[in-house]
């Protein structure tokens, strides 16, 4: 089905631009007229939208002698150069029309190839800015075609005689100098797309369709046919890209061009066929876009746009041999098959997904095959061993990267708890401004917490800083809770610091906030394991505000067994965004480390057994 235009309805197609701006070029189309009494019908034209009105156009003429088909180069009144092919057309008959503009003084016109003529007058037509099918190429009276048009095409070269002959035989423009084909719209049915240059033709006044002319297209066994200018495959990347474009318009057959399309896609992404295997080798530097393209090539996803997480979830199924690759991926889905060989990888990756129990075990440095927290942490053992054997220098040799991992994780946990605390605070009557102000005043440095660290190890100091950070964050959460109007219960229950904590916890349990309150009460557990609550309790005890007998408390051993009752009284909250079972496991091990640190650094003895066991 070709395009059918009706002059009476002013129907035409237009592109507000031009595939070529001037010579050399060739324009070709198939066209017929249905009205032999209507002159100046334009099936195809290139021109200028604005003054001066100039351009190149092909037209059926009926008022000129011999009713020619006219090929006009018009550069103004003084440059009105026409090539007339006389007495060649009748209505309702398809004609191949080709206008070869080799230079400003070298033009040739063909009707069905065998009827041709040339012109050598010099024109100075300005830059072309407009293209039309079914109408004249410039402003003013458009002189529409009443008839059919199909297969308009433009090359940015002057085709040879022999090439025009091929077109006139009915071969698609795709067979002729495809590397120079810059515009081609077969105009099948109402599909007005340019399948090589991507130009979008706009239709005006709804042209209809008519039977298509007799055209031979590249079939699935014909790709690679040798053109006049040489083998098509010599410019394979361009030609294949165009043939892939054909696939989009449904012209090419499925299998062969589909495979070519995939090959082009892979080439464009600079991935070789080797890469299309599922194993991502170490030597590759693949960014997210390329991975997404690779996933498409592998057929692993039917979506064209893949999120980073989706890419990661696919890639994470394969062996990632490079740390940097894991880091680049960002949020990795740590399934059990994912061997993250180094804890540093996890650190760089950041927050592991909730289901990555195994990965968290590795993060902690648990020995391979370790089933649970009871087996302990290799890292913890190392720390214990080093701490017991060494001086400050020995401790300095301890790499607490794993501790940092834990700290980061627990820090994230408590940060979220802090957010929940804030939400609880703002939901109650407490002034939101003051709460916000308190949050902004969070001081995360070790020194502001009042602890002086004499250990020279930078890594240990950093770990302590992190401990302080997480601890302080939770402390502030508690402070906010107290600030929130719970001081009555805090002060009234002050038989012991434990009662204070318990009172706060119970108050939150009974709060109407419910879910958020439960999580905040769990923050107390986090404090327990950071050891900071111990210090806080000691401070409170020293202040004498809450404890009847405060003296000597500073050196007292804090038996955290009493906290077990509190913890077990808290509902086992399995809901929410935090898997508290894992928190418990982590914190249990963290507790081990903190216990050592507290004992070695601050002389504070803490209970040795795990304070609770969630069932």
């Amino acid at each position, binding site marked *: *089905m070709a395009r059918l235009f009706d002059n009476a309805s002013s129907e035409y197609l237009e592109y507000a631009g031009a595939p070529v701006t001037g010579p050399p070029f060739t324009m070709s189309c198939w066209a017929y007229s249905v009205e032999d009494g209507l002159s100046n019908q334009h099936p195809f034209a290139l021109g200028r939208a604005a003054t001066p009105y100039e351009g190149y156009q092909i037209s059926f003429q009926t008022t000129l002698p011999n009713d020619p088909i006219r090929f006009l180069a018009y550069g103004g009144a003084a440059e009105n150069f026409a090539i007339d092919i006389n007495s060649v057309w009748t209505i309702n008959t398809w004609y191949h029309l080709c206008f070869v503009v080799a230079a400003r003084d070298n033009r040739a016109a063909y009707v069905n190839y065998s009827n041709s003529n040339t012109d050598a007058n010099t024109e100075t037509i300005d830059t072309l800015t407009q293209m039309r099918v079914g109408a004249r190429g410039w402003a003013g009276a458009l002189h529409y075609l009443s008839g059919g048009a199909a297969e308009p095409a433009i090359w940015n070269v002057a085709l040879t005689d022999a090439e025009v002959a091929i077109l006139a035989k009915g071969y698609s423009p795709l067979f002729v100098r495809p590397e120079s084909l810059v515009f081609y719209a077969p105009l099948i*049915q109402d599909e007005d797309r340019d399948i090589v240059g991507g130009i979008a033709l706009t239709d005006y006044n709804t042209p209809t369709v008519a039977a298509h002319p007799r*055209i031979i*297209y590249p079939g*699935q066994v014909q790709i690679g046919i040798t053109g006049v200018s040489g083998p098509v495959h010599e410019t394979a990347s361009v030609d294949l890209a165009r043939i892939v474009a054909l696939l989009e318009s449904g012209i090419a057959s499925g299998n062969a061009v589909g495979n070519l399309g995939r090959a082009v896609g892979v080439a464009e992404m600079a991935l070789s066929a080797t890469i299309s295997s599922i194993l991502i080798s170490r030597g590759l530097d693949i960014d997210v876009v390329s991975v997404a393209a690779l996933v498409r090539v592998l057929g692993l996803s039917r979506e064209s746009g893949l999120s980073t997480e989706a890419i990661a979830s696919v890639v994470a199924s394969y062996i990632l041999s490079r740390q940097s690759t894991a880091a680049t991926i960002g949020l990795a889905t740590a399934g059990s098959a994912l061997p993250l060989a180094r804890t540093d990888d996890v650190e760089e990756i950041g927050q592991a997904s909730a289901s990555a129990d195994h990965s968290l075990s590795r993060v902690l440095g648990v020995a391979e095959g370790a089933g649970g927290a009871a087996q302990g942490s290799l890292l913890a053992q190392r720390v214990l061993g080093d701490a017991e054997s060494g001086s400050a220098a020995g401790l300095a040799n301890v790499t607490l990267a794993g501790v940092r991992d834990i700290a980061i994780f627990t820090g994230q946990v408590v940060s979220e708890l802090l957010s929940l605390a804030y939400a609880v605070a703002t939901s109650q009557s407490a002034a939101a401004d003051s709460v916000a102000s308190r949050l902004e005043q969070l001081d995360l440095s070790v020194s502001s917490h009042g602890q002086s660290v004499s250990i020279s190890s930078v890594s240990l100091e950093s770990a302590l800083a992190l401990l302080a950070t997480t601890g302080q964050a939770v402390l502030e959460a508690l402070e906010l809770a107290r600030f929130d109007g719970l001081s009555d219960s805090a002060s009234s229950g002050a038989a012991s610091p434990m009662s204070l904590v318990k009172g706060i916890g119970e108050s939150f349990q009974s709060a109407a906030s419910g879910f958020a309150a439960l999580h905040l009460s769990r923050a107390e557990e986090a404090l327990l394991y950071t050891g900071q609550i111990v210090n806080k309790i000691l401070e409170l005890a020293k202040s004498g505000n809450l404890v009847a007998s405060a003296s000597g408390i500073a050196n007292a051993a804090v038996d955290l067994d009493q906290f077990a009752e509190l913890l077990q009284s808290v509902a086992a909250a399995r809901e929410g965004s935090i898997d508290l079972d894992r928190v418990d496991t982590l914190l249990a091990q963290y507790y081990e480390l903190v216990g050592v640190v507290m004992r070695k650094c601050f002389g504070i003895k803490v209970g040795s057994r795990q304070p609770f066991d969630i069932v």
Partner: protein
Amino acid sequence: MAAGDTLLTFHPYSNEPPAANYATLDLRNLHPCLDFDAATNESGVFSAVMPRHYAAGGVTVYLHYAMSSAVADTVDWDVAFERIGDQQLDIDADSFADVNSVNDTTVPGTSGNVDVVSVAFTDGADMDSVAAGELFRLKVTRDAASDDAAGDAELYAVEIRETPA
């Protein structure tokens, strides 16, 4: 490969239209097809080399078609082979064997549904004696003069299959 195996498939863009009364290229929801007129017998022609694994068991030609608009009445198809072979034909003139037909097929009740009809050829003269490894042409014609379904018949694919045993 043997009886029952697909030998060749042709798609609309493989058409080598005859000089006159040719089926015209069309798109339906971006599916390429060849339109065969309802008033005039129009043809599509496809050329290929008979695969080497053709075992001389005869072939069955399957036509995958739909109707542009008709949901009633019947459609008739004619299919013919032309052997080119190794110095078997002066190709300056057409020489198709007699057609085999599949006639009076009631068109699908939904115009967008693609129906598949088949026409069998025995090995030998019935298919112009095309043998394995020989170049040949296949002509598919809608016998519009005989059928009565309205509007164009759209051909989407042609399959040549070695006739099942």
